[in-house]
């Protein structure tokens, strides 16, 4: 065996081990969802069944946690995207000396362990609401949204900032020159340009919120989300209904990914046609008329 063969072989071997490590547990769990024993078991595989999916669909706690997670996810998007947008815009306007301090402050939640964010959020808002009498704000859902948004807004900000840096300031000036007010420029020119980034940020925000555990489990107080229900179930020892849930989640994400790829391909094709039109127009203009 030559050296090249050794390298190729070990590369494939390494990749195999890597992805076995990564996918193995999930595959095993997927199998247990369809297996009959009432505790998650992959091997031996006794009989194929959909039973656990039915159990899942009747699980009140899981369903409640699911809807609550969705509700919180939507609220987090509604809070984080505007905050991230403002953060990105201000980042561009802040002069350089203050910029690093500003950056440090707004990115710090990303680096802070989720547990600490949860704790600090709860402590602060408990004291703040008693101080200012806004007791209604001291509620699990509100606290989770606030806690999660503190770092999810930073993700949004970074995504929007990347697109913002490619923005042609001249467009703003042109709109102003044509008589638009600043608010009109914001809504007619800036936001449409940032739309793709804001959509990505929204999707990321929702997904990050939905699957968050550390911050959520502390800030949720007495309420429940899907992740906290799961954690509770898993610790108590559970039925393969949990595995069934995992299979459902996997399928949904795979379908979503495929949809995304299809949409992206279609968008690329449309752009190619536009460019072709422009080139044709250009050529017609330069040829002797």
């Amino acid at each position, binding site marked *: 065996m030559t050296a090249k063969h050794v390298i190729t072989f070990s590369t494939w071997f*390494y990749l195999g081990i890597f992805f076995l490590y990564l*996918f193995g*547990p999930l595959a*095993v769990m997927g199998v247990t969802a369809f297996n009959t024993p009432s505790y998650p078991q992959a091997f031996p595989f006794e009989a194929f069944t959909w039973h656990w999916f039915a159990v899942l669909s009747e699980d009140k706690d899981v369903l409640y946690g699911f809807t609550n997670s969705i509700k919180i996810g939507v609220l987090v998007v509604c809070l984080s995207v505007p905050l991230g947008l403002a953060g990105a815009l201000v980042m561009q306007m802040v002069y350089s000396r203050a910029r690093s301090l500003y950056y440090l402050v707004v990115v710090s939640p990303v680096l802070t*362990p989720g547990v600490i964010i949860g704790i*600090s959020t709860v402590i*602060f808002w408990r004291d703040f609401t008693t101080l200012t009498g806004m007791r209604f704000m001291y509620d699990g859902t509100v606290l989770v949204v606030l806690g999660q948004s503190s770092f999810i807004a930073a993700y949004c900000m970074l995504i929007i900032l990347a697109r913002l840096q490619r923005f042609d300031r001249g467009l703003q000036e042109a709109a102003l020159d044509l008589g638009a007010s600043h608010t009109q420029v914001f809504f007619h020119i800036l936001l449409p340009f940032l739309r793709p980034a804001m959509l990505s940020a929204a999707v990321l925000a929702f997904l990050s919120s939905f699957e968050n555990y550390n911050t959520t489990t502390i800030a949720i107080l007495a309420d429940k989300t899907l992740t906290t229900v799961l954690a509770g179930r898993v610790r108590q020892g559970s039925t393969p209904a949990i*595995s069934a849930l995992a299979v459902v989640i996997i399928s949904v994400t795979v379908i979503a990914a495929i949809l995304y790829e299809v949409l992206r391909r279609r968008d690329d094709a449309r752009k190619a046609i536009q460019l072709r039109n422009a080139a044709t127009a250009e050529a017609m203009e330069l040829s002797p008329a």
Partner: protein
Amino acid sequence: MTAATGHWLVLALPVLVLAFFVISARLEKRSIASFWRRNGTAVSIYLLGAVGLWAIFMIVLPQLFMVEMSFRPKLPPTQMGGPRDIYTLQNYKYFLFGSTSSTDSWNVIHLRAFAITIVASVLITLFNFAFCYPLAFYMAQVATAARVRVLLLMLIAPYWINEVLRAFALRVIFAGSGVLNRALQGMGLITEPFDFLGADVAMYVGLSYAYLLLLVFPLYNAVESLDKRQIEAARDLGAPWWHIHLFIVMPHAKPGIASGCTLVFMLTSGALAAPLVLGGPRTLWFTPIVYDRFYQAFNWPQGAAYAFILLLTCVAFVLAVLRLSRLSLGEMTK
């Protein structure tokens, strides 16, 4: 000083910081007026309001309040803010000595948990690095673009699943009657099921598994930016492969390595899901202990103190990494 005054002091802090910003802006000859003019009234209000809400009420003040609370005694709600609510180090004493007053004996359990958490996190980070580096290098320099796309997709896919479920998946595998035990028994390596969960092996594997991806990405990005020709030139000159990696690729990838390792360390030491799901009854991991102080012992000041200790550890780690790798924060977070 009573806590009541302390509270107002803490609230006043951001106002002071803002004042600092305004004053230094004046000094640099920019003014609030030009900001207002550049953006129009409505947009300016939105920008300042949103950033103010976010930076002050969601980031700075909660941290300050948490730190402040860690220096207060545990009191029933009626007595908070009253005369008995004074600043004290008793929560930190508890962490070290197991009691708020005496310093006779060390708080062995918590201190051990803390030490294990730190050491294990470092080791897990190093292991993850060693495990991920070849893949990152392969994707960045060797594989074709199409294959990289496929690999990226395959890498991200498992992480669409919630970390709790992933920990659960590992639990299924490591359980007494799980796949691993059955396989080992089947191969004749062991006769009785081995308690992976109780021995914390499952937990360590789970912790490594949880954040593998987060190391691949920064590494991949960092290595990708290296000009392939440098490697080829070195190989041409006869450098052995380990030399190339140690002295050419890794120094170039330093920011990526630093940021990836920092992220993994902080997430691992602050992990809650994997220890809870995969740990046994006697598992020692620091973050579940923090959680316990809060919601089992209902001792919020103590929970705050423990949380603050964790935060300081993370900050210390980041600073150490920055110093060791001679990078600045901005370079690293790219």
